[in-house]
C-alpha cells in the first residue's frame, strides 16, 4: 500500500462519531465534549465488539493447546501482531513485541537491552520535552550504573534545536531516547533527521511514539529507528496493551526481562533455553483480547486513512488556535509550526485546575496539570497548563462549545 497516496475523499466525521458509543454521553446535564485524547482515546464499537466476541466465541489460552479454541485464539493473537507489523512497516512480525503500553516498552528496552551495555561514566541522551515515562526508566538505570542522563534543551517555541543536536552526541552516548510527538506541546519532532544524525555517531535510538501513532503514518523502516513504542489505548484500542518494535539486530541482542511460561524451548533446573523472536519477551499469559482489539483498532484507523485523520486534526488545530488567540492574556505553551492536534495554554494567572474544574461542569473534558512532564513545566516556569487534544471524531462545533464554556469559566474566575 502506498501510504502517502491515501486520502479519504470525504471525511464523514458524523459517521465516525456515531461509531463511538461514549460520545453520546451526557455529563452534568450537557452533551460531552471529549478533548482529552492525548490521555486516552474513546473506543469504536468495532473494537469493543471484538473483545466481547473473543470472550463469547473463542476464549482460550494461546500457544499451548491443540484444541480448536486455542488454535483460533493463537491465530487471532498472531494475526494482530502481523497487523501491527504492517501498520508500522516493520520487516518481520518477530520485531513486534506486545507489552502493556509505552511505559512497559521503555522499561523493557532499559532492562533487556541497555542494562548490559551501560557502564559507569556512559551517557543516555533524552530531550527536555519527555514524558516522565521516557525519563524515569533511564534515570533509574543511570543511577544504578553510575552513568549520566543528559538532556537536549527545548527552545521557547517548544522545539529541539536541530542545528545543535550533534553537540550532545559523544563517544559515551549509549542511547538517544526521544518522543516523536510531545504530549504537552504537540511538537512533531523531525524524527527521521534526528535518528539519522544519531546513527551517524553510531548511537542507537529509541522513539516514544505514544502521541504519534494515533495521528500520523509511522514507518519504522523509513525512520530507521532501533526501537519504537506506542500504547494501544491512545489509538482507539483498549488499555493494557502496547507495542515495542525492535529492529531484528536489536531484538537478537535483548535478553528476557521477565521469565516464565510460554517463552522457553526447554527448562531444566541447570539451564533454560529460550525461544527466539518476539514471544521471548511475552512471558505468562498475555493480554490476548487487548492484542486482538489493537489489531481491529489499527484496521479501523487505516480504513479511514491516517493521512485523512492527520488532515482533519490539523484543521481542528488551526481553527481552535485561531479562536483561542482572541482570549486576553492567553499564553500558548508550544508554538512550533509542526504540531499534532494538541494545544497547551494558560490564561493570565488563573490556575489550570480552576479552568479545568469549571470546564468539566460544562461537560468539556480537557487535561489540566503538568501532563507528566514536570521538567518541561519548570522550563517554562509554570505549574501546569490546560491541554486540549483532538481525536479523529472531534468537530469545529465542539470547539465552538468549548470556546463558549471557556469564556464563561474565565468570566467566573477573573
Amino acid at each position, binding site marked *: 500500500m502506498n501510504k502517502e497516496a491515501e486520502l479519504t475523499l470525504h471525511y464523514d466525521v458524523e459517521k465516525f462519531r456515531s461509531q463511538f458509543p461514549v460520545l453520546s454521553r451526557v455529563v*452534568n446535564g450537557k452533551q460531552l465534549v471529549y478533548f482529552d485524547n492525548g490521555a486516552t482515546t474513546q473506543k469504536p464499537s468495532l473494537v469493543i465488539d471484538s473483545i466481547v466476541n473473543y470472550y463469547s466465541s473463542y476464549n482460550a489460552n494461546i500457544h499451548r493447546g491443540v484444541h480448536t479454541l486455542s488454535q483460533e485464539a493463537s491465530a487471532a493473537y498472531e494475526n494482530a501482531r502481523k497487523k501491527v507489523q504492517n501498520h508500522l512497516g516493520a520487516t518481520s512480525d518477530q520485531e513486534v513485541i506486545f507489552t502493556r503500553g509505552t511505559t512497559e516498552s521503555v522499561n523493557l528496552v532499559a532492562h533487556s537491552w541497555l542494562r548490559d551495555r551501560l557502564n559507569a561514566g556512559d551517557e543516555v541522551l533524552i530531550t527536555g520535552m519527555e514524558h516522565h515515562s521516557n525519563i524515569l526508566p533511564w534515570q533509574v538505570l543511570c543511577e544504578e550504573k553510575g552513568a549520566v542522563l543528559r538532556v537536549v534543551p527545548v527552545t521557547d517555541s517548544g522545539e529541539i534545536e536541530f542545528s545543535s543536536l550533534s553537540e550532545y552526541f559523544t563517544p559515551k552516548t549509549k542511547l538517544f531516547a526521544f518522543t516523536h510527538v510531545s504530549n504537552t506541546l504537540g511538537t512533531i519532532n523531525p524524527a527521521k533527521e534526528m535518528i539519522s544524525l544519531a546513527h551517524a555517531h553510531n548511537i542507537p535510538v529509541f522513539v516514544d511514539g505514544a502521541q504519534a501513532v494515533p495521528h500520523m503514518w509511522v514507518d519504522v523502516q523509513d525512520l530507521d529507528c532501533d526501537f519504537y513504542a506506542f500504547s494501544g489505548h491512545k489509538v482507539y484500542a483498549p488499555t493494557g496493551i502496547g507495542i515495542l518494535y525492535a529492529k531484528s539486530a536489536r531484538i537478537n541482542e535483548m535478553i528476557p526481562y521477565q521469565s516464565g511460561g510460554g517463552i522457553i524451548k526447554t527448562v531444566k533446573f541447570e539451564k533454560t533455553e529460550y525461544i527466539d523472536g518476539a514471544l521471548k519477551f511475552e512471558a505468562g499469559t498475555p493480554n490476548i483480547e487487548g492484542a486482538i482489539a489493537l489489531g481491529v483498532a489499527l484496521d479501523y484507523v487505516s480504513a479511514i486513512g491516517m493521512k485523512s485523520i492527520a488532515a482533519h486534526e490539523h484543521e481542528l488545530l488551526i481553527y481552535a488556535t485561531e479562536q483561542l488567540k482572541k482570549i486576553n492574556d492567553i499564553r500558548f505553551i508550544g508554538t512550533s509550526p509542526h504540531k499534532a492536534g494538541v494545544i497547551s495554554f494558560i490564561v493570565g494567572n488563573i*490556575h489550570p*485546575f480552576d479552568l479545568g474544574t469549571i470546564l468539566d*461542569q460544562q461537560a468539556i473534558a480537557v487535561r489540566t496539570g503538568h501532563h507528566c512532564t514536570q521538567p518541561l513545566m519548570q522550563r517554562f516556569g509554570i505549574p501546569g497548563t490546560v491541554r486540549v487534544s483532538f481525536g479523529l471524531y472531534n468537530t469545529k462545533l465542539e470547539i465552538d462549545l468549548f470556546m463558549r464554556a471557556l469564556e*464563561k469559566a474565565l468570566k*467566573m474566575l477573573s
Partner: protein
Amino acid sequence: MDIAAIENEIIEEFDMFEQWDDKYQYIIDLGKSLAPMNEGWKSDERLIKGCQSRVWLFSELQEGNVIFHADSDAIITKGVVALLVRVLSGHTAKEIVDAPLTFIDKIGLKQHLSPTRANGLVSMVKQMKLDALALSAKN
C-alpha cells in the same frame, strides 16, 4: 456553634443555589475573600502536596482551641479550603478529630474530596486532624 451546626449552616447556604454556576461562583468568591496567608508561613513543611493545586496549612492553639490558617494557589481549592477552615477552626482537638464532615458530600462537592490525585484536599482534611492531635498532645 459546634461543628455540626456550622456544617448545617453551610448546607442551608448551598441549598439556595439551583444552578451549578451560582454554586461555583460562591466557592470562587469564598476563595477570593479568604484572608491571604502570611507569605512567611508558606514554607515547604506546611505545603500539602496535591498533583495539581497546592495547599498550605498553618495550625496553632489559642485558649485550648485549634485555629487553622490555610491558602491555595488554585481559587476553587481555596474556596473549599475556606469552608473547611470555617467548619473546623476554633474547636477543640477532640471535636475536630471526631468530625465526620458530611457537609462536603451534601453540598455536592464530593468530587473535590475524592482521593484522586487532582488536588490536596483529602490530605488537607487528614493534616488538619493530625495537627489538632499534635497540638493537643503538646499542650
